């Protein structure tokens, strides 16, 4: 019973966070919700606490927000807070442990909140005056990176794909124009035509996989393949909380819950008539990943994940 209350609480919490703070990333909102659960938790054993957190995560995944981001952020958050010294774990009073988890959680959130600034800082030298960039769909990290470059006095030319079926590129284009960045909205099908005059492709990611490849808005793969053929670098901007313990071999191996929103999947067995929301871009098409851990090659992602999860 109590778990049900926790679940509905978590959902409303997440929704209000995403609504009230338009710039917050899904991952950050998810771990903030988890921290809230920790704060109000009355658990007396680690198993109880685990059950509560499990319930909250599954509740959040049942919303229509990117389940890739929610899963990766929640896993990393839980891994990070539970790294407690041995003598603390042996303590009989669970309140102490809970306090420790709370503190660790706050530290983690602080770190995550800083990651976009760090990514902006790391990627700054890659943009020069009148660099032409092609970007796809709406990405908050890419937006913040471009803002940072713009603020430091670099005049960029950005081409944004419409990114159908939800035309999220339009939103991106509007935001960029508002910031005073020279932005052009282009057709999704114009990517091949435009590629030869681009300097680089810059995209965000819903999740960074163990392969070093990314899962992102559908169409990213076609752009990356096109860029590779024309020898243009593909840069991915992604916070490290987007690292997911998943190893897709090809498009058909992407987990179902990543491909379709929960509302689409609900109660349906045959999804063949639905448009997938994301595609998987293998590491061979990615030049560099800009993360808060630094600038990584795709190969380095696997190593970071081993460090995080062993």
């Amino acid at each position, binding site marked *: 019973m109590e778990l049900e209350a926790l679940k509905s609480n978590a959902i409303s919490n997440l929704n209000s966070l995403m609504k009230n703070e338009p710039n917050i990333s899904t991952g950050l909102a998810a771990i903030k919700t988890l921290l809230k659960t920790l704060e109000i938790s009355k658990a007396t054993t680690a198993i109880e606490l685990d059950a509560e957190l499990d319930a909250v995560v599954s509740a959040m995944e049942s919303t229509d927000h990117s389940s890739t981001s929610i899963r990766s952020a929640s896993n990393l958050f839980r891994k990070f807070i539970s790294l407690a010294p041995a003598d603390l774990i042996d303590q009989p009073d669970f309140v102490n442990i809970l306090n420790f988890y709370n503190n660790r959680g706050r530290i983690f959130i602080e770190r995550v909140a800083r990651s976009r600034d760090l990514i902006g800082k790391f990627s700054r030298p890659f943009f020069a005056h009148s660099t032409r960039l092609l970007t796809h769909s709406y990405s908050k990290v890419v937006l913040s990176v471009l803002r940072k470059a713009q603020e430091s006095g670099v005049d960029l030319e950005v081409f944004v794909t419409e990114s159908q079926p939800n035309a999220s590129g339009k939103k991106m284009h509007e935001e960029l124009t508002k910031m005073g960045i020279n932005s052009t909205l282009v057709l999704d099908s114009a990517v091949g035509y435009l590629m030869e005059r681009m300097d680089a492709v810059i995209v965000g990611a819903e999740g960074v996989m*163990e*392969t*070093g490849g990314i899962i992102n808005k559908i169409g990213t793969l076609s752009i990356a393949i096109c860029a590779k053929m024309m020898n243009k670098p593909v840069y991915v901007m992604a916070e490290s909380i987007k690292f997911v*313990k998943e*190893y897709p*071999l*090809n498009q*058909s*191996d992407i987990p179902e819950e990543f491909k379709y929103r929960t509302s689409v999947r609900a109660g349906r067995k045959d999804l063949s008539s639905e448009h997938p929301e994301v595609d998987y871009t293998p*590491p*061979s098409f990615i030049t560099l990943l800009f993360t808060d851990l630094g600038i990584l090659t*795709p*190969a380095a992602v*696997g*190593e970071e994940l*081993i*460090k995080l999860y*062993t």
Partner: protein
Amino acid sequence: MGKNKGKSQGGSPSANTGNQQSPKSSEKPKQSEPVAAPAAVPDAPAAANVEQITEQVNNLHLQNGEEANRDDVMAARKAKAAAKAEKAAKAAAKKEADAAAAAAKAGGEASTAAEPKQNNEENKDAERGGPPQSEMSKEEILAARKAKAVQQRAEKAAKAEGKHKQDQTQQLGQKEDLQSKSNLKQASSSPNGNEKGVRFVAHDQKETRDSIHNAFKPLFDRCESGDCEGPDELCLHFMECARQFISQFTWDNEEQLGTMMDDSLSMTLKAITQTDRYPLPYAMGNVVRQLRKEIMQVGRNAMTKRHLLEWLDDSEQQYFSLANSAISQHLQGKIAAATKIITYDWCPVVNHVLIDSKTKGSLKKLTVLDAAKNGPGVRHLTSLADHMGYVEYGDLTAVGSIFERGSLVLLGCSAVLSSGRVCLPKGAFQLSLVARAANVPVLILAPTYKFVDRAQAASRFALLGKTPLDILPPDLITAIVTDIRLLPPSSAPAVLKAKALDDAN
């Protein structure tokens, strides 16, 4: 030969100035046929004796004029010099070791009289019914050189072996001396200059076997008879032998037990690898390294033989059964999504995964390929016979027609190198190339103990010297499936670090 024959028929012998050796060799027999009075050499090889041949050669000199004569004299001089050198080498060998003395004696017969050396050699060749005489002068030189080289090698080996043996007898109380016998065998074959007769490996096997601790002899014999299929079986057998070795080993001083055990083990390993000439198969090298680390602890830190045996049991479980089921677990989703699984050659890990996924119902279709029909891959078929009604089987020539939409290639391996390259049975490279062309993912199944901190692979391994390997570059590999999880090949160094298998450990 044929080419030269045609040439010599037309032109005079003295016209050959550019390449004196080869035309000469063919022109002699032509001339000798009418000239040599006593029975032509090739016709009655067994009857020919030294006198006859000497006479024959002399006749030849008289008949052929200066050009040929000079050639022969030159060749004879060279041969003489070579024979002298050989004799000197053998004399040195005599002094060096007792064992080598026998060899020198056997080989020395050929060079007792320095003067009739050439004739002696020719006689031998005549007996064999081999190539005509004058050609022999060159061949003889080569033979002498080879004999010398072999002699020196044998001396070295005898020396090393003698020392090794000494140590061995001191420590293990073994007293067997087949050394001189084997040296004799080697030396007797050396004057012929027959490279095959003096193969180092062939001659060394008996000695090697004697230097190996009794507990490890079954392993060595099994590998010698070619009964061992691959590194997995080898590792398991090694661990079994190690168990015997540890339980048999006794030493008065409890504190030094570990050190003595390690010394004895290292002696055995030295014999197996022929003093590091052929490295152990990589995966086995890992097991040995970790075992030795544990052995050194015996007698210290309250570590006893019982602990060591327990450690062996634990690691065996960890490396094999647990790792296999972990790998199988990681793969279930992928196998269920694939329409067809393709594998190559034999690998127990792959076999475990296949049986496991068949029982769980995720495996739909299976194709097994071998380098040639009725190869090791048949073991997959026999082991799956109870589980599957139909399995496709073929040799590598079928590789073009086996891929269909949704296929998945699963390959076992003998080692994953730190560069992300993977050592596989020969032929797996072709399969992977075709898989890449067909856009089919290639998964390598590798328990973490198969990861090694090497960037380059040796071509031959101790115990498994005959097993040919392919080295697959990382860009042909979609993922490596380990007991930790699925990894890109580029993560090999991270695995080494996480599992403390790198050189620092």
